[in-house]
């Protein structure tokens, strides 16, 4: 039906597009493997020759990236665990349990989508600072720094979200009714029904949500910038910007640090690509 050569033309254009999108990532990796003399050469050399691995140990020595990495892992993993559990629990209740006010609660949860975190950063900061009984604060929320500069403070904005609850609810809605009814007849508690019968059936949704929450927590910048003071609490993104301010144009070193901060999410992304794209498609089609 199509004119001859159409396929080849489409293929070439697709290849060009893919290359354009891929070049910056490759350029980061290539630069990270170049010695300073090769980074600053005119015209730019494309390939590092010889391969120079020194930027990686040098970056690790110039800033405590291992510590930043650990902080990012702690924050992202806790965010995933809390968010997935809390969202599954709420999504299950909203889909399968009957209680007065259910619809109203669901609408209230959805309404929080209209409140992006950047908009509420000031009061969120104040709430954390005056959180009672934490970080040297008394019962009235004064005296110390509250949850500032702490892991719980970092996790809070990612710990629950309307998107996750909505996603889980949609999944629970698709499961057949008689599953929990027969368990109820046998006298299983509601939590047991949830944890041992229903939860295993929504693993795909949990995986999707986990990947999203991980990426969001790992990549966020403004929130750690605002609430973290001490170097040992820096996340990777925060550490990376401070590093850049110090080594402004040492691009070999900077690209090595950037690569180290990006490779975990890139690998995760490649491994979970299906989960990821299905999740994106789902979020696009079902809202």
């Amino acid at each position, binding site marked *: 039906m199509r004119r001859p050569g159409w396929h080849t033309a489409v293929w070439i254009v697709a290849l060009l597009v893919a290359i354009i999108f891929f070049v910056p990532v490759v350029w980061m990796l290539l630069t990270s493997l170049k010695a300073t003399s090769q980074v600053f050469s005119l015209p730019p050399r494309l390939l590092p020759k010889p391969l120079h691995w020194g930027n990686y140990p040098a970056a690790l020595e110039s800033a405590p990236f291992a510590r930043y990495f650990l902080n990012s892992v702690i924050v992202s993993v806790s965010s995933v665990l809390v968010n997935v559990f809390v969202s599954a629990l709420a999504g299950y209740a909203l889909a399968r349990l009957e209680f007065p006010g259910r619809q109203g609660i669901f609408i209230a949860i959805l309404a929080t989508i209209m409140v992006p975190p950047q908009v509420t950063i000031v009061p969120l900061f104040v709430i954390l600072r005056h959180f009672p009984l934490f970080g040297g604060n008394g019962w009235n929320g004064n005296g110390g720094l509250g949850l500032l500069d702490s892991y719980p403070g970092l996790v809070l904005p990612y710990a629950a979200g309307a998107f996750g609850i909505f996603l889980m609810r949609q999944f629970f809605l698709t499961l057949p009714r008689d599953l929990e009814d027969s368990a109820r007849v046998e006298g299983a508690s509601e939590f047991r029904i949830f944890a041992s019968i229903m939860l295993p059936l929504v693993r795909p949704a949990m995986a999707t949500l986990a990947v999203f929450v991980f990426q969001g927590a790992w990549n966020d910048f403004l929130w750690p910038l605002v609430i973290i003071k001490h170097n040992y609490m820096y996340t990777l993104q925060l550490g990376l910007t401070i590093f850049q301010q110090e080594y402004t144009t040492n691009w070999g070193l900077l690209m090595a640090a950037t690569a180290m901060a990006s490779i975990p999410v890139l690998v*995760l992304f490649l491994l979970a690509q299906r989960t990821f794209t299905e999740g994106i498609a789902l979020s696009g089609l079902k809202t």
Partner: protein
Amino acid sequence: MSFRSSQRAAGYLFVLPALVLLFFASGLPIIGIFFYSLTRYSLIQPPVWHGIKNLVSVALDPTFLGSLVNTFYFAAVTVIVGSTVALLIALLLNQKIAGRSAFRTAVYLPQAMSYVAAALIWMWIYDPLYGLLNALLRHIGIHPVNWLTDPSTAMPSIIILSIWRTSGYYMVIFLAGLQGIPRQMYEAAEIDGARGVRSFFSITLPLLMPTVFLVIVIWSIGAMQMFTQAYVMTGGGPAGATSTVVYQVYLNAFQYLKLGYASAESVVLFAAVLILTILNNRIFSRFSYTY
């Protein structure tokens, strides 16, 4: 005890953790921006009632108004150009060609990276002397550009990086939308003699309108909150050319400790996002087709 009452108790208990977290992360803070916008608050002293004076000063503050214009400029160009790019790529990579999934991966790989990482990579690409982009320009005989330090190119440079970083995400949404269009539609159109560009405008685009609307809304809301790129690449400069509303909120709240004033700025941003969503909704609901 009946099933009903145990279900009721379990229902409330199960939604409770989510509600508590959302209350602290969203509910209380949204009330907070309205409350603090009416006060003078330096964090060191408790907030003092200030009435609508903050909102009035914000409305008359040239730095803020400039940032508001920058924010709209950034959001409008990023979303319009970006969603066009994402849609074209989705159409391209929806064709049955060899290596299609590898091409898709390349396009949406960038969106897995953080804006900090993306900003650093592009700062290096935009480097006036040793950067890749100027090397390319020099190669084809065009004068090098001071991408990030020239007020007229700084924002476009950030826009390019943002489109690069985010298009892949929306391409996936478009691909899902394209796959949702029933094949029979195209077959019917082909019998009527419509194919290629005509079938795109008479079938694909109208049926894709809900997806287009969705992408524009989500992307606009995100773009209105641009901060990281400006913070890392330009510090809001040169001469305020890349300063955004969130950047001003950050500066006023956490550098100058004017939390009341920053809250008033947040209220304006919140209103802008809200109006934008409603407006988009109005415009696009007219063009939406259901099938």
